């Protein structure tokens, strides 16, 4: 009975492999969400997205291009959403390769700060949607379907975690959460803005993104100053009382 309860309790943890766990530098990373056959079909399907969108058609063409029979699209129970997920996953993994560019592009011989790196990486990630942006609203519709929401949210969280990690952020207090939450919000909003952007080289999107980052800096700065003031006043008050001989 006890063991049964234990397995029941453990099942939800084991059922869904979460990639945001202990990251080892000696052991290879655990396998991603897609196996080899799925990866080959989805990779072949990606070039069909600009013309056929995030649809079953793209998936079927990808399967044909990869040398699988048409019925092999049944490998993907969630259908076209697998394409969206694969796009998000590959774009997220591609960010680690941009890191070399970021390290090289040190302005004035100085290495870029964490904030500048986060901005640059977020922009690189948005540019990953450049080719398929006219189809992205289809993907957003799929991402917002209730059955797909857990994956969407987890991908967004993984993306902001990846960006902060690659940028070299080492905070391990409450700001770990606020940083990731604010970056996720900024990214989601900018991505939505980008789908309606008709300017050359997405200049409007870039401005929009910069405004969002400025906003978050202003809000973060205000919260920090209030916190500092409260902390200082409390400390000063305590020390005044101690100097008066109160035993606290």
């Amino acid at each position: 009975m006890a063991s049964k309860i234990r397995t029941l309790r453990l099942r939800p943890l084991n059922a869904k492999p979460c990639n945001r766990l202990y990251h080892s530098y000696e052991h290879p990373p655990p396998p991603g969400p897609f196996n080899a056959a799925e990866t080959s079909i989805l990779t072949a399907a990606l070039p069909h997205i600009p013309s056929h969108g995030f649809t079953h058609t793209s998936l079927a063409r990808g399967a044909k291009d990869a040398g699988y029979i048409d019925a092999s699209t049944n490998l993907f129970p969630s259908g076209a959403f697998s394409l969206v997920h694969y796009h998000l996953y590959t774009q997220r993994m591609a960010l680690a390769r941009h890191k070399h560019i970021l390290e090289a592009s040190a302005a004035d011989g100085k290495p870029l700060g964490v904030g500048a790196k986060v901005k640059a990486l977020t922009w690189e990630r948005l540019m990953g949607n450049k080719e398929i942006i006219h189809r992205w609203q289809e993907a957003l519709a799929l991402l917002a379907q209730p059955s797909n929401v857990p994956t969407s949210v987890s991908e967004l969280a993984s993306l902001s975690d990846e960006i902060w990690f690659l940028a070299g952020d080492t905070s391990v207090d409450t700001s770990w959460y606020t940083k990731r939450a604010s970056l996720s919000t900024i990214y989601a909003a900018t991505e939505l803005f980008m789908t309606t952007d008709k300017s050359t080289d997405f200049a409007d999107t870039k401005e929009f993104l910069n405004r969002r980052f400025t906003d978050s800096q202003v809000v973060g700065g205000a919260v920090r100053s209030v916190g500092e003031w409260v902390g200082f006043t409390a400390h000063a008050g305590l020390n005044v009382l101690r100097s008066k001989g109160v035993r606290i």
Partner: protein
Amino acid sequence: MTSLATYRRSVLHAAHLPVYDFLAPSFIQIPRASRVRYISTTRKLAAIPDQSSNTPNPGQSASSNAPSLKKPLTQAQREFLSQAFRVNQAGELAATLIYIAQTPPIVASHPHLRPLMKHMYDQEAGHLETFNTLLAKHRVRPTAMYPIWTIAASALGWGTAIMGREAAMACTEAVETEIGGHYNEQLRVLVDMVEQMEESGEEVGNELKELMSTIRRIRDEELEHLDHAVENEAKQAQPYELLTGIIKAGCRGAIWISERV
């Protein structure tokens, strides 16, 4: 050394308290089954470099070993390591804050305790720094209860310090007992993990070995604090059983929560 150990045990027996001799610092050699186990693991770990230096000589065995070394950690292992890192960071944060809050009232009434409080605080701050670095390096999420533990630990430290030196030391004793026991449990799991990896022919990486030696060192330092607390009349606190009971239960609850959120 043995006479010191027996003396210690007799003193502990005389005071009628549970004998947590498995929590004692490693420099005290108490003959015990679990002790022997720890010693055996250190020996085994020390022997690993010899094995690896012997095996490369025959070329084929080195090449057959090579792929098995590069196995990803299992989901359960990564979950355990994430939980362990998260709990340890939260624990060291709480310990640091307890000492910060205790120091001013204690030092005001007992100035001779200033060096001891500073020594214990410095060690805890070092532990917190260690785990902060490890968390950031291994991408482990810190506990979501961070602000709550901050407030709770400061309140606990300040509250016990107001109750007097004995209560503050009883608080230290209770907390360090729980933390020491918790580190021992973690070490036991890590030793099992390493044994399993060795049995299946995997090489144990430096990451895990370093983690084990770090946890061993930190556990010994925590237990040193426990000894200091007992030396400073932690047992004289009123009501001793109630106070340490509540604090220990709180620690266990905090550990349980921090492992999960």
